């Protein structure tokens, strides 16, 4: 099976701007699992794993907030963990699992 497990490559960080409004991509389905969730992109057929329930909530509520930063705050992600969450979201943006809202 293919996976886009994180930590593969560190590419252009400009690709993900947490100040912008984001959402789960429209062709992406999310399946809750005991450890978090699977996300699957029906277009590029990539499978990713969300490794915490908080990250699942973040991805699911991105669309309700004016920015990714605001989503992280609303989901109660502690300041110290913000960089890790931003990296996880950047990974998801790179594999097109989340997209900028127009």
């Amino acid at each position: 099976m293919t996976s886009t497990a994180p930590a593969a490559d560190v590419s252009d960080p400009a690709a993900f701007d947490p100040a912008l409004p984001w959402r789960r991509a429209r062709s992406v389905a999310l399946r809750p699992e005991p450890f978090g969730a699977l996300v699957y992109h029906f277009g590029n057929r990539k499978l990713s794993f969300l490794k915490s329930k908080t990250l699942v909530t973040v991805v699911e509520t991105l669309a309700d907030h004016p920015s990714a930063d605001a989503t992280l705050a609303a989901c109660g992600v502690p300041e110290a963990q913000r960089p890790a969450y931003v990296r996880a979201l950047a990974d998801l943006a790179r594999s097109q699992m989340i997209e900028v809202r127009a």
Partner: protein
Amino acid sequence: MTAVLPNRPAPERPTGGRLVDQFEYGLDAPICLTWELTYACNLACVHCLSSSGRRDPRELTTAEAEGVIDELQRMQVFYVNVGGGEPTVRPDFWHLLDYAIGHDVGVKFSTNGVKLDRARAAQLAATDYVDVQISLDGATAEVNDRVRGTGSFATATRALENLAEAGMKDFKVSVVVTRENVSQLDDFRALTDRYGAQLRITRFRPSGRGADVWDQLHPTQAQQRELYAWLLANGDRVLTGDSFFHLSAYGQALPGLNLCGAGRVVCLIDPVGDVYACPFAIHEQFLAGNVRGEGGFQRVWQHSDLFQELRSPQTGGACTRCAHFDACRGGCMAAKFFTGLPLDGPDPECVQGYGESALAARDADLVTPRSHLDHSHTGPVRGQPTLLGMPSLPPAKACDESPLAGLQLG
């Protein structure tokens, strides 16, 4: 269901940690579900993992197959790997393909190419969410046809031509790595590049008729070492179904999930709806239930005793004391089982050599387990593979054998 795995305490899932550790405890729905639609096949490959050939009269009907797809959609199984037998010989194959895609279940199907004419290739090229894998077990007709049958290389390459011509993207050439083709990996790459396809190579297991030719066809230790080096050099450009994780015990882990996924992230639905822990484990001991039963597939996946049992990490057995256990996790369950080795011991192809000694230490009178199912063709098949020699037909009359048959002298 009798216990298959010794030394397994009741599982309690940890929180956080590596995905591979999470996967050992299983998922709410499989990631990688193989669904064999029929045991019928036009070929008679010597190493067929499901001993296919003849259709089973109890095969799921079209309506039952649609019911399974509805259930997969509810469970959010994002895609299925469809195989057989030769799935495209089912008259409702193309209908079921459309039905699955229409219900958010993507389809990757494996075929020998027999039905992929220009029209079908064009149809597939115009369909989203479908992936095609053409099976080929030699980069030349000579190597391929010995195991898959005379003419099968020509059939497969014609299908590849049709797909390429139709503008199909991302289709695959699927190769089972054997002693006879392992030296052709670069040739396979060149062949797939020629059609704009992608190469997928998987491990040969002693399942189905594969058990009959395993001694003859499984790669030697030296070949495994070469294969490992090749995968490290080319792994990012070749798909493997993560099936070579036993090679990770050489040192560096291979890309992907290095874990036996049977009943945890993987399972098989066979043509009659029986659910097995893995496509390579068609044996009563790994039969978890049937999709026709109450509660359907979901109940089997989530609640069968067998799958519960498989979803706990191995804590005992010879392998857990090996320095490489974390790399290979003891290897392939099916490979051990069908070679008569204990499931908590080494893989028969253990790269540290423990498999060879375990095989040598088997009882002389040990009878290796056989599947209760065999749908192999009973009569001769056109273009029969020649690996095992030419098929011998019994003489119709005694004098066909000898002109002196039955002659009484004196």
